[in-house]
């Protein structure tokens, strides 16, 4: 166990500065590194002022949708006489994404501090950190850190001597990708099946336990203490590109690449330099073939598109995809795109909560047809059928899991159509030798 690489000189380690340093995990170690000063300051500041700083900083949600965090917080009406809740989304199950895991493993107090500040800013006394059930080590580390924070009076009915109550609890999930969707997460926390809820009402009106609720990703909340300490202008100035994408961002990199791992860069970093200089480029003797830059739910990029991309919310959109969760999945020229896309579809079929017909049936049909093509039993009509099913799966369901399955399939067929057709014409995978097939 350990952090896979030393920080590259071109990274901007803010959230990841202490990854790999076991001392930073402890409360005393965290305090020595400046921890909990931002919380102390925040507890003496009015919620409205904190929301304004976060708004001003341009921070956007790191969980996938990129919604402006300060604006989300401003939907929580102070003084409405209702209990408010903060949910920290640590379900991290989007294939290709493994950054929140590192934040929790190495800097648990950074997340607690972010949660406590967030709770205060939205008028909540309680924050729940919902961690996917498989993250046994992060759960253990977070629970220990929460215990220490209570023991030290950082959390509890008189948080840091402020007279304000701040409770933070760790809640363990039990295996379900869909529980990362914010309304499914709330259902799961309440002790229900993790089915997403119909919106409206939005969580800020009626969320957890029917009360006003804000849901934020781990990385989003962990950025907040830095913004309060260093100021909104500092955060904004970090961007290399668009004023709409500010600050630093963790990208998880995996698949066929020399140096997989987590990298923290400032928004607007050139994707080409990222892939070749920071991550070491393709494996020896190989070439990149396809790249999914934002977790498995976003459109797949060709190498040309990826190499022309600036890494921020707008930059990825300009090259036909999305920043998403920042999970970069790399496929090289040894991979069959049909097989890979079929396997992704299988993931969504397995994870569909089965509530909406379009998703339940669509993800299953898509998987069966793709696997049929992969095994050399497909027809040309299958390609049209896939796109048609995809159309019916997009924008028609309670949550976007259905869309997330259709998206990589549609982009895959569009960009690697020749590979699909070769499977159909040759009645086998052309990348396997005739003997093996």
């Amino acid at each position, binding site marked *: 166990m350990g952090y896979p690489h030393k920080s590259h000189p071109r990274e901007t380690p803010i959230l990841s500065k202490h990854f790999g340093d076991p001392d930073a995990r402890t409360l005393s170690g965290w305090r020595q590194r400046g921890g909990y000063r931002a919380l102390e300051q925040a507890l003496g500041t009015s919620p409205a002022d904190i929301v304004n700083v976060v708004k001003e900083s341009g921070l956007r949600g790191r969980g996938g949708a990129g919604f402006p965090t300060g604006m989300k917080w401003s939907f929580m009406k102070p003084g409405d006489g209702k209990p408010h809740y903060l949910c920290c989304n640590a379900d991290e199950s989007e294939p290709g994404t493994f950054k929140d895991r590192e934040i929790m493993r190495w800097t648990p107090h950074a997340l607690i501090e972010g949660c406590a500040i967030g709770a205060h800013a939205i008028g909540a006394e309680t924050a729940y950190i919902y961690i996917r059930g*498989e993250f046994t080590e992060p759960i253990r580390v977070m629970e220990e850190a929460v215990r220490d924070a209570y023991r030290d009076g950082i959390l509890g009915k008189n948080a840091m001597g402020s007279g304000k109550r701040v409770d933070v609890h760790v809640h363990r999930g*039990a295996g379900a990708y869909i529980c990362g969707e914010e309304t499914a997460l709330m259902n*799961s926390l309440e002790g229900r099946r993790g089915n997403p809820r119909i919106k409206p009402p939005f969580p800020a009106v009626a969320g957890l336990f029917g009360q006003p609720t804000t849901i934020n990703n781990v990385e989003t909340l962990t950025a907040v203490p830095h913004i309060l300490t260093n100021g909104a202008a500092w955060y904004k100035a970090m961007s290399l590109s668009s004023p709409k994408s500010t600050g630093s961002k963790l990208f998880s990199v995996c698949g066929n690449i020399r140096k997989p791992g987590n990298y923290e860069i400032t928004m607007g970093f050139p994707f080409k330099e990222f892939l070749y200089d920071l991550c070491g480029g393709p494996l020896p003797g190989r070439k990149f073939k396809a790249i999914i830059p934002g977790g498995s739910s976003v459109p797949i990029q060709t190498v040309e598109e990826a190499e022309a991309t600036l890494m921020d919310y707008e930059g990825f959109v300009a090259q036909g995809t999305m920043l998403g969760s920042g999970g970069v999945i790399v496929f090289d020229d040894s991979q069959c795109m049909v097989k890979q896309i079929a396997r992704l579809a299988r993931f969504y079929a397995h*994870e569909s909560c089965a509530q909406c017909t379009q998703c339940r049936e669509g993800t299953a049909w898509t998987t069966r047809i793709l696997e049929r093509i992969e095994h050399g039993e497909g027809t040309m009509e299958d390609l049209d059928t896939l796109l048609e099913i995809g159309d019916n799966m997009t924008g028609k369901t309670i949550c976007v899991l259905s869309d997330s399955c259709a998206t990589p399939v549609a982009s895959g067929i569009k960009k690697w159509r020749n590979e699909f057709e070769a499977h159909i014409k040759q009645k086998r995978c052309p990348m396997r030798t005739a003997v093996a097939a």
Partner: protein
Amino acid sequence: MSAREEGGLHAPAHASHSSAGHGHPAEHTPVFTGDNRKKLDEILSRYPSKMAALLPALWIAQDEQGWVSEGAMAEIAGLLELTPAYVKGVVTFYTMYHQHPVGRHFIQVCTTSPCGVCGAEDVAKAFLKHTGCGELGVTSPDGKYTVIEVECLGACGFATPIMINDDFIESVTPERVPEILGTLK
């Protein structure tokens, strides 16, 4: 085809060699006594509803019994003022609760695409071979092992990650499998 329905895409984990959990409801030894009861009471204090303690209570039961029996579901239902049918409905939604006894070492191998392109399928095959399980979801004749494939474990940069009970092991290759199994009792 969804895992949330019967007959999901992956073989569900069930122990074909064990009779427990089938036929007559076995005698249930209460889970929530002593320390477990104290733990549950502490957990209940964190939420405004009793129902919110359901997932944590199921974890306590599984930690105690190795799986979640009908008896445990009924006991939890009583404690949280729910019906046993409701509890079962929740249990069946989540993939990590075992509805049948499983091998003493429950092995989960991630085979989703990012791990798949790094050779995860061969890792799963190596576990099936060296444990004697032969097939996914089937417990080995000695009751020691159950191997299943799972979706993304959230550690894709450390392909191939696996879990053995609560232990998370990164960067597993087929070559490491005998050594890993050798450390298990």
